């Protein structure tokens, strides 16, 4: 701490230059915070995917439906303990900005397969008893201010009703939570039987099956057995692990992680060049001053440490400001982002990663000037 004044004074030597450099670092870390959070939100499904669950979809496209009757046949395959099903409903709640996933499903089967989703028994019973009943995740209910007993209107875009109407209505009978710390609770579920009876076409069809395994190690063997069961049928299947399915789903839009890493790589490469040049220039201007420090008894190593510390102080200060701004920005834009990428939030892991990156950046941009300062010959440098 006793050197802080000296380091700060060094940075404040050219206030405009330091401020501009700092702003570029702040901007880079705002981008880091926001883009990493968006990438994480895209990959959230992948991260929380169960290791003991398989997903069975149509062999050629996830938009093709499969017969509901497959469920019983899959249950008979050795190594399978439970099977549930789900279907993509699409649809719009009031405005197209209000995106959230909506699934007609068999609640009993689904909740048994996903023990992390917690729904109180009374609400579970109410869901089973009310054919037009629906259950929403806690985050979703909070987002729209829903409470139990509310009537939720959904405009269909894929599934019209058999009377031609696209106005589906549901009674909110339950709100579930997700006991997994990183998992979302933002889905909207309603009864498959009601959906199947009311929809205009594709009756007796479902979107995909979720299969629970007795042993995760048997995943490949069971997947092959399921696909073999339906080979050469009208609806051949493709069975993958839940993680691969989530990854494939996320990659429908593109490899978000790779795109974000590419953007951040370009930004930080530019920052290294920019800040590195600034630091090198700042040290060149201060050669006689560094020689004075050496004259007074600062060792080569301590001068190296001072220059590196100055560089790290600059990047760390910029990173902390940038990360703080990214937290505020994500908070401010969360409702707008919710429609595109639900669940965007900056994680402690990303904040810690940002601080680590700032330290590395500080060392990278300060190392060359620090080595120059360390190697200064006092007599020559005093004459400079």
């Amino acid at each position: 701490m006793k050197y802080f004044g000296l380091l700060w004074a060094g940075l404040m030597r050219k206030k405009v230059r330091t401020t501009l450099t700092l702003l570029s670092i702040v901007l880079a870390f705002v981008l880091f915070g926001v883009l990493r959070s968006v990438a994480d939100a895209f990959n959230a499904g992948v991260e929380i995917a169960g290791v003991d669950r398989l997903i069975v979809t149509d062999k050629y496209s996830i938009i093709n439906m499969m017969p509901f009757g497959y469920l019983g046949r899959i249950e008979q395959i050795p190594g399978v303990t439970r099977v549930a099903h789900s279907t993509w409903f699409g649809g719009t709640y009031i405005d197209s900005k209000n995106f959230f996933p909506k699934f007609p499903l068999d609640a009993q089967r689904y909740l048994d397969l996903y023990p992390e989703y917690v729904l109180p028994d009374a609400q579970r019973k109410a869901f089973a008893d009310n054919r037009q009943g629906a259950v929403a995740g806690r985050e979703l209910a909070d987002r729209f201010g829903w409470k139990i007993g509310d009537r939720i209107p959904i405009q269909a875009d894929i599934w019209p009703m058999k009377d031609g109407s696209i106005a589906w209505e549901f009674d909110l009978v339950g709100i579930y939570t997700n006991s997994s710390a990183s998992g979302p609770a933002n889905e909207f579920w309603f009864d498959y039987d009601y959906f199947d009876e009311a929809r205009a076409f594709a009756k007796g069809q479902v979107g995909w099956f979720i299969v629970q395994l007795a042993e995760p190690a048997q995943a490949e063997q069971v997947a092959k057995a399921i696909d073999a069961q339906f080979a050469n049928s009208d609806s051949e299947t493709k069975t993958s692990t839940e993680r691969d399915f989530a990854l494939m789903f996320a990659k429908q839009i593109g490899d978000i992680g790779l795109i974000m890493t590419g953007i951040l790589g370009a930004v930080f490469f530019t920052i290294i060049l920019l800040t590195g040049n600034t630091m090198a220039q700042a040290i060149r201007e201060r050669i006689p001053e560094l020689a004075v420090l050496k004259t007074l008894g600062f060792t080569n190593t301590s001068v190296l440490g001072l220059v590196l510390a100055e560089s790290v102080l600059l990047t760390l200060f910029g990173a902390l400001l940038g990360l703080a701004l990214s937290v505020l920005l994500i908070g401010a834009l969360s409702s707008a982002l919710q429609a595109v990428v639900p669940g965007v939030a900056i994680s402690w892991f990303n904040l810690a990663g940002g601080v680590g990156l700032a330290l590395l950046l500080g060392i990278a941009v300060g190392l060359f000037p620090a080595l120059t300062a360390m190697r200064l010959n006092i007599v020559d440098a005093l004459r400079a």
Partner: protein
Amino acid sequence: MNEQQTLVSLRRVSKEYSRGKLKVKVLDNLDMDIAKASFLALMGPSGSGKSTLLNLIGGLDQPTQGDIIFEGKNISSMSSSALAHWRSHHVGFIFQFYNLLPVLTAERNVELPLLLTRLSRAERKRHVATALEVVALSDRAGHRPNELSGGEQQRVAIARALVSDASLLICDEPTGDLDRQTADEILGLLARLHQDHGKTIVMVTHDPLAAEFASDRLHLDKGTLSAEVAA
């Protein structure tokens, strides 16, 4: 000169510089003793090797050949970090152009050598206040170098040289950038430090009037001590 009274001894010291393929001998086989609590003026024409000799005595440079003994320790064979450590404990430097850090106040400039010690902040502050009092600059402690006159800046530099209680003060043309009156004030201050505080001072100067303040004067010419005049 009595061995016990000697602070610094130079024995057969030579210094060569390489300029391309050319070797230039600046100091040649020089022997010299500097007594404790003496005030020595080193004089000589430009290029005579005065500054080189000063740098060697102050541990800023090392001889090509020969030994420099400070209180029985051979500093010419010390590593760069040991020499830095030695300088921080034993030597104070005063330069012609003051060499203060422009971004720091007078107080913070004087504090610099103390950052290398284990003194607490309060103790450092107390030492700095004492040093600034000795050079009669307490009222300018919060000013930056560009807010001080040349004489005041040099007094800050003297306070910085004194603050860690160095026994040897190395002064390289300390009045070269000052008018006569200010120069005399600075030289008077150095003489007082020598007389009242027992500091050993080695001063390079071109100015014969400045040399008058010293107790001993040595003339250096072409790398050789050519004359010694007792005060």
